[in-house]
C-alpha cells in the first residue's frame, strides 16, 4: 500500500515545526528492539536491513544515561535510500523549498506513527566536547542521553542537538570538508538531516561533510531533525481536578491532546515505541557487530579541534533549556547563598545544584557574565565546594580575567584552593600557548581563511596603523583587549613585549571593537 503522509504546520516557543502522521510507511528507517539479555534494553536504529546505531541501557530507569555506539554505515543502504536524504537537505537549505515539501520523500521511508519535524542548530559533538564522527566507535555512556533529563524535566522543550554519525569515520576526509567549506564560502547554505535517538542525541542521516565544514569554519550547523513522538505528558485536568495524560510529547514538542486530530492520536497509540522491521532477525544479528576501525585512526584538522571547545556540552545545553531567565539580581542572590526570590525558587531548592545550572546556563548563553559569575565564585570561600566544578568549566575559556583569577589561585596559600591548583597551573600554561599561537598566527599572516582576521589585516594594512602597532590595534579591536605577542628584535614573538606594546597603545575607537 502507498504511504499516506498527513502534515500539519504548527509553532511553539522554539520555532515552527511539522506534525506528521505516517500511515503505511515503508518502514525502512526506524528503531527496533534487539535486546539480548534479561533486564537490559538494546534499541537499534536501522536503515533497511542494516543496524546503524545501538542504544543500550542496563536498567529501566529513564533518567539513566545510555550507551551509544555505531555498528555499521548508512553508505551500505544507498540502494534503498537513493538520493532522498541528500535531496531533502539540498532542497530545504539551498533551494529554499518548504520543510514539508523537502522532507516528504524521507517521511515515506519511516515506520508508521506520529513524528515531529523541525529545523534548528545541531552540534557536531558527542555532548562532551569530542568531534561527533569518531566519538561513537566504542560503546560508552554519554551524558545527556537519558530519555528523561532531570534538569529540563518533563514539561520543558529542548532540541536533541548532539549528533551521532551514521557514516563510517573512514569516509571522513579533509578534502571533502574543504569542498563543503568552499561551497559555503560561495554562499551555499549547508545543512543536514537527523533522526532523534534518545535524550539530546540524534543520528545524522546526511550532511556529515557539511557538519565538519561548518565546524571548521566555526559556523552553526543547521539541521532538520525528525523526532518520533513516543511519549506523553501529565497535566492538571481542571474538570476532574487530577493530573492525567493530557498531551503528547517529544523533546521539541509538548502538544495538548485537544490540538491533535483523533486519527493522529489513534495512530500514536496503536504504534509501539519499537517497530518490527521486515529484516528484524538480520538487524538483530548485525547489531552485535562493531563498526570496523580500519582506516579510522586519523587526525582531525586543527580548526575542528579548536572550534570544538566553543560548542556547548550536554550540561550546558540542558541548563540552557531548563532555565528561562537569569538576571543579575538572580545571580547576586545566588552568590549571597539564596535559592529563592519572592518565595519562588530561582533555579532549584538545592543550592549547589542552582550554582551548577547557573554556570552552565551562562556559559552557553552569555560568556562574559559566565566569566564574571564564576570568577566571583572562585573568590568566595563559602562556595569552595563548587570550586572544582567551576574550575573545570572555566578551563576552556581563554580570557584575561580567567587567567588573572587562576594566577591568583596558583599564588594563593589558602588550603581551599589546593584541589584546583593543578588545574589552574595547567590553564596558565595553556593560556600562554593560546596567546602565543594567536599572535604568531595573526602577525605571521600565513594563510588565513578566517574572514574576521583577514578583514582586520586589511584594515591594518589600509592605514589604520603600520607594522606591529597596527597589528596590535587590530587585534585589540578584535579580541577586546586579550593579551597577544609582538615581534622582538631577534625575530621571535613574546607575549611580554606585546603586553608592553598594548599598554602603550591608544584605546580603540568606540564601535570598532565589534567582532
Amino acid at each position, binding site marked *: 500500500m502507498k504511504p499516506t503522509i498527513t502534515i500539519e504546520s504548527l509553532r511553539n516557543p522554539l520555532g515552527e515545526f511539522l506534525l506528521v502522521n505516517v500511515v503505511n510507511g515503508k518502514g525502512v528507517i526506524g528503531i*527496533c*528492539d*534487539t*535486546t*539480548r*539479555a*534479561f*533486564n537490559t534494553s538494546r534499541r537499534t536504529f536501522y536503515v533497511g536491513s542494516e543496524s546503524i546505531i545501538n542504544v543500550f541501557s542496563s536498567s*529501566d530507569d529513564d533518567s539513566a544515561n545510555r550507551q551509544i555506539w555505531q555498528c555499521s554505515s548508512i553508505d551500505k543502504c544507498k540502494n534503498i535510500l537513493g538520493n532522498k536524504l541528500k535531496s531533502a537537505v539540498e532542497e530545504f537549505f539551498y533551494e529554499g523549498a518548504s520543510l514539508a515539501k523537502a522532507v516528504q520523500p524521507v517521511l515515506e521511508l519511516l515506520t508508521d506513527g506520529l513524528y515531529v519535524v523541525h529545523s534548528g542548530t545541531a552540534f557536531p559533538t558527542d555532548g562532551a566536547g569530542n568531534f561527533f564522527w569518531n566519538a561513537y566507535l566504542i560503546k560508552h555512556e554519554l551524558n545527556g542521553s537519558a530519555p528523561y533529563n532531570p534538569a529540563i524535566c518533563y514539561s520543558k522543550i529542548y532540541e536533541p542537538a548532539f549528533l551521532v554519525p551514521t557514516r563510517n569515520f573512514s569516509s571522513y576526509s579533509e578534502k571533502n570538508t574543504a569542498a563543503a567549506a568552499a561551497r559555503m564560502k560561495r554562499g551555499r547554505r549547508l545543512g543536514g538531516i537527523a533522526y532523534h535517538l534518545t535524550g539530546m542525541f540524534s543520528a545524522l542521516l546526511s550532511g556529515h561533510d557539511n557538519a565538519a565544514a561548518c565546524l571548521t569554519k566555526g559556523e552553526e550547523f543547521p539541521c532538520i531533525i525528525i523526532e518520533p513522538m*513516543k511519549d*506523553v505528558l501529565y497535566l492538571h485536568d481542571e474538570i*476532574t481536578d*487530577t493530573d*492525567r*495524560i*493530557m498531551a503528547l510529547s517529544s523533546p521539541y514538542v509538548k502538544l495538548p*491532546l*485537544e490540538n491533535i486530530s*483523533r486519527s493522529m*492520536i*489513534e495512530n500514536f*497509540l*496503536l*504504534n*509501539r*515505541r*519499537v*517497530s*518490527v522491521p521486515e529484516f528484524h*532477525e538480520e538487524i*538483530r544479528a548485525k547489531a552485535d557487530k562493531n563498526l570496523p576501525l580500519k582506516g579510522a585512526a586519523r587526525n582531525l584538522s586543527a580548526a575542528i579541534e579548536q572550534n570544538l571547545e566553543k560548542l556547548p556540552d550536554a550540561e550546558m545545553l540542558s541548563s540552557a533549556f531548563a532555565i528561562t531567565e537569569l538576571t543579575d539580581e538572580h545571580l547576586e542572590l545566588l552568590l549571597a547563598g539564596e535559592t529563592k526570590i519572592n518565595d519562588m525558587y530561582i533555579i532549584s531548592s538545592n543550592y549547589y545544584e542552582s550554582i551548577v545550572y547557573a554556570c552552565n546556563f551562562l556559559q552557553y548563553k552569555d560568556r562574559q557574565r559566565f566569566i564574571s559569575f564564576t570568577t566571583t565564585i572562585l573568590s568566595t570561600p563559602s562556595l569552595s565546594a563548587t570550586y572544582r566544578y567551576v574550575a573545570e568549566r572555566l578551563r576552556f575559556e581563554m580570557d584575561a580575567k580567567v587567567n588573572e583569577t587562576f594566577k591568583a589561585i596558583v599564588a594563593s596559600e589558602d588550603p581551599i584552593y589546593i584541589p584546583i591548583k593543578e588545574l589552574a597551573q595547567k590553564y596558565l600554561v595553556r593560556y600562554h600557548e593560546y596567546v602565543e599561537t594567536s599572535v604568531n598566527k595573526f602577525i605571521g599572516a600565513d594563510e588565513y581563511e578566517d574572514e574576521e582576521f583577514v578583514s582586520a589585516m586589511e584594515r591594518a594594512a589600509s592605514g589604520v596603523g603600520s607594522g606591529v602597532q597596527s597589528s596590535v590595534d587590530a587585534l585589540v579591536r578584535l579580541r577586546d583587549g586579550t593579551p597577544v605577542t609582538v615581534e622582538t628584535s631577534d625575530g621571535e614573538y613574546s607575549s611580554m613585549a606585546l603586553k608592553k606594546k598594548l599598554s602603550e597603545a591608544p584605546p580603540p575607537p568606540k564601535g570598532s571593537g565589534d567582532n
Partner: protein
Amino acid sequence: MAFDSLRGERIYVSQNAATFLVGDYFSVFGNESEIPHIYEWSEVKSYCENQNGITIVTSDGENYPIPRMAFSDNAQFIRFRTIAEGQLSGAKCRLTQRILPPKYNYSSVDIPEQSFSAPCVYNEKDINSGSVAHIQSKAAKYIFLLGGIIFVAVFLALVFILGNLDKNWFYYLPISFFSGIGAGVVIFLISSVFARLRFADFVKHDVSALEETIIVVAHAGFAAVERCVYAGTELIPWSQADHYFETKTTIVITCKDKSVCWIPKRIFPKNVQNDVSSFIASRVTSK
C-alpha cells in the same frame, strides 16, 4: 515488560460507544469531542478476564468492561490480552483457567538458534497425560496424608465399636491399613477423572486451547506462545519455573504463579526428545 513489538489493538464497544486501544498505553475514547483518557499501564489497578470478556479498572476508579463479543475473532482477543498482560504484573491480573502461561511471566530476550523450538496444537492426550501427572504431583502428599488419617480413623472406629483390642488387633490393623489405601486409591481415581476432563475445560474456557502454539526451550528460559503473537523474543526465565514432571507423552513445567507450561514430546523429533528432557532437568528441579 514483554511483547513490546506487537502492534496495538483497537476495539470498539457499541453498547457504550467507546473505543479501547491497547499498546504502550491503555486508552479509552468516548465520543468525538471528548479528550480521550490515556493511562499508563502502571495506572491500571486490576485486569480481570472471565467468560464474558475483560474488565479493566484504573486507578482513578473507572471501570471499563470490554465484552468478549466486541472482538472480531480469537486472534484479536489473544493479541489484546497479550499486550495488556505483557505490560502488567501478575498481582494485578485475575485470569480464567489458561492452557498457556499468562504473558506477565515473560521477558524480552534473545532466543539463540541452538534452542529447541517447534509448533504445536495441543490434543487431549497431551494435556490429560500431563494433567494426571500434575494432579499426582500436587495431590500425592495430601492423598498419602488422607490415607493415613483414614487408617487411624478406621482403626479407632473398630476399637470403639467392636472392642477387644487385645484379642482382635491382628484383624483391626490390616482392615484399617487397606481402608486407608483404598480411600487413597479412590480419591486418586476421582481426581484423575477430573484431570482427564481438564482439556475439555480448557477448550471451553480458553480461546488459546485450539490455537497453534510455538513451544521454545532455550538457555535463558522457555515459552509456549500462540503463533499469532509470537515475535521470537519472549521467554519465561528459568527463575520463574518452580518444578517440572515428565510423563510418557508430556513434560510439564509449573511456574511460581501456579500456571503450567505443557510441552508435548511428540512435537520434537524422536532423537531430540531425550535432549529436551535432560535440558529441562538441568534447569528445573523434578517433582
